[in-house]
C-alpha cells in the first residue's frame, strides 16, 4: 500500500513538473500570439499549424546560440543565477491542490503533490527565494545595467512581499488553516473567497504582478532604461532559463490565486452533479476530473489576464512603484485585515447570539 502511494506521488510530481514546463513553454507562444492579437496582427504562424511549433523552434534556437560569459564576470555565480531562478520556480507548484481525490479501487489518490499544513508559507518562502536568481545573476554579470536591474528586483520583491503577506493574512483568518488543501476544500460550490475578500484579492493581484516582474512592474528587466536589466549579459539557454522561470512563476502565481480566491477546483453545482450519480465512487471521480479541468481553466484565465495587462499598461516609474507598495498597498492590506476581523466577529455575534 505504501509503495503504491510512493510511486503515485513520484509520478504525480513528475507530471506536475512536466505540466508546468509545458505551460511555461506555451506561455511564450501565447504571449506573442496575444500581443499580436491585441495589436491587430496575427503573430507567429509559420512553424507548424497556427505556429504551434514556435516554442520548439525558439528553444532550438536558444540551445544553439553561443554561450557567452563576459570576461570580467564571476563565472560560477553567473552560471548559478539562472539555475537558482529555474529551481525555485519549479519548486513552488508542489503544494498546490490541482484537484480533489480520485478513487481507484480501494485506494484514494489526492491530486496534490505534498499536503503540508504550512502550504501557503511554503509558497511564500519559495517565492521570496526567487529574487536570488535575479540578484546573483545581475551582480555576477559585472555590468552596471545588470546590477541596477538586480537592485531593482531585490527592493521591489521585498517591498511587495510585505503587502502580499498581509493580504494573505485576511484569507487565513477566514479559513483558519495554512494548508492550501483545506482552503480549497472550504470553498465548495460557489462559496469562493473572492466574495469575502475583494479588496484582499486586488492587493494580492497587484503584488503578484510585482513579484513575477510583469508589466507594469517589470522595472528589473526594462528594455528601454536598462537594456534588459539583470539578463543583459545572458545569452543562449541561460537567458532561456530566466525567461522560462518567469513564465513558470506566472503559472504558479495564477494557480495560487485560483486556489486562494477562486475556489481552486470547485465549481457551482458540483454537489448536485455528485449526487446525480448512483455510484458514489463514479460520481466522486467525475466531479474530480471536471474539477481539475476547472482548476486549469481558472489558471489559464489568470495567465491570459497577466498577458492582457502586459499589452495594455505602460511601465511604472520607480518612485511610483515604491510609493504604491509602501504608502498604499500595505495600509490597505492592514485595513483589510481589520475589516475581515470585524466581519468575522460580527458574523459570530449574530449567528451565536
Amino acid at each position, binding site marked *: 500500500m505504501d509503495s503504491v502511494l510512493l510511486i503515485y506521488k513520484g509520478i504525480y510530481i513528475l507530471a506536475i513538473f512536466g505540466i508546468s514546463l509545458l505551460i511555461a513553454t506555451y506561455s511564450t507562444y501565447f504571449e506573442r500570439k496575444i500581443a499580436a492579437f491585441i495589436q491587430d496582427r*496575427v503573430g507567429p504562424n509559420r512553424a507548424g499549424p497556427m505556429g504551434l511549433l514556435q516554442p520548439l523552434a525558439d528553444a532550438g534556437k536558444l540551445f544553439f546560440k553561443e554561450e557567452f560569459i563576459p570576461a570580467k564576470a564571476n563565472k560560477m555565480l553567473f552560471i548559478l543565477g539562472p539555475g537558482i531562478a529555474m529551481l525555485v520556480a519549479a519548486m513552488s507548484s508542489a503544494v498546490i491542490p490541482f484537484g480533489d481525490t480520485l478513487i481507484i479501487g480501494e485506494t484514494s489518490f489526492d491530486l496534490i503533490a505534498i499536503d503540508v499544513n504550512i502550504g501557503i508559507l511554503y509558497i511564500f518562502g519559495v517565492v521570496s527565494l526567487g529574487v536570488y536568481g535575479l540578484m546573483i545573476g545581475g551582480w555576477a554579470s559585472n555590468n552596471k545595467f545588470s546590477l541596477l536591474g538586480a537592485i531593482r528586483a531585490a527592493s521591489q520583491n521585498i517591498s511587495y512581499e510585505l503587502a502580499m503577506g498581509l493580504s494573505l493574512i485576511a484569507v487565513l483568518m477566514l479559513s483558519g488553516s495554512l494548508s492550501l488543501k483545506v482552503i480549497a476544500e472550504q470553498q465548495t460550490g460557489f462559496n469562493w473567497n473572492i466574495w469575502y475578500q475583494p479588496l484582499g484579492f486586488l492587493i494580492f493581484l497587484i503584488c503578484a504582478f510585482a513579484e513575477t516582474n510583469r508589466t507594469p512592474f517589470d522595472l528589473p528587466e526594462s528594455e528601454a532604461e536598462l537594456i534588459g536589466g539583470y539578463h543583459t549579459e545572458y545569452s543562449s539557454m541561460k537567458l532561456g532559463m530566466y525567461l522560462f522561470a518567469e513564465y513558470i512563476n506566472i503559472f504558479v502565481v495564477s494557480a495560487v490565486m485560483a486556489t486562494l480566491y477562486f475556489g481552486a477546483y470547485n465549481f457551482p453545482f458540483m454537489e448536485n452533479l455528485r449526487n446525480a450519480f448512483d455510484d458514489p465512487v463514479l460520481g466522486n471521480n467525475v466531479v474530480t476530473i471536471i474539477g481539475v479541468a476547472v482548476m486549469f481553466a481558472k489558471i489559464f484565465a489568470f495567465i491570459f489576464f497577466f498577458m*492582457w495587462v502586459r*499589452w495594455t499598461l505602460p511601465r511604472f516609474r520607480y518612485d511610483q512603484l515604491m510609493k504604491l507598495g509602501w504608502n498604499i498597498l500595505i495600509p490597505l492590506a492592514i485595513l483589510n485585515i481589520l475589516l475581515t476581523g470585524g466581519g468575522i466577529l460580527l458574523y459570530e455575534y449574530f449567528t451565536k447570539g
Partner: protein
Amino acid sequence: MEPLSNRRKNVAQKEMTLSERMYLPAIAQGLGITIKHFFKKKATINYPEETRQRSDVWRGLHVLKRDENGAERCTACGLCAVACPAEAITMTAGERKKGEEHLYREEKYAVTYEVNMLRCIFCGLCEEACPKAAIFLQDDKLAPARYERDEFIYGKDRLVEPLKTTETK
C-alpha cells in the same frame, strides 16, 4: 487672442478626483480597449500566400516585350533613356545580322539594355515614350530586395520577356 478655430482647449491642471487617483477605472477602460482589439479583424496580410490588392495602374518591374513571332520589339532608339527622369536606363545599339530575323524585329536592336532599379522611380515615362511598344511596367511583379548593389542593374537577361514555348494563344 481670438481663437482661429473652435478646437482650442483650455488646459489647466485640475485636482484629480478619487476615482481618477485610484487609476482602476482608467485601467479597466484600457483593458476594455485592448480586448476590443483582440477580437477585431487583423490587419495582417500573409504575404507569400496572399498579396495586397494592387491598383489597376500599378507600375512594377520592367519587361521588354517580344512580338507575336517571338522577336524583340526594342530598336534601341533611346527615347526611353531620354524620357527617364532618373536616368536609370542605358543601352547600346547594334545592327541585325543575316539570319537573326527571328530574334529581332527591326534592323537595329539593343545589344545591351540595362535598367538600374536603384535609380528607377517607376514613373512609367519610358513606357509612354516607347514608339515600338517594347517596354512595359508589369502590374504583378516587383523589383525584389537584394544583397549587392550590382544585382540591381537589370540586364537584358532579366528584362526580356521569356519565349513562349507553347503556342496556345
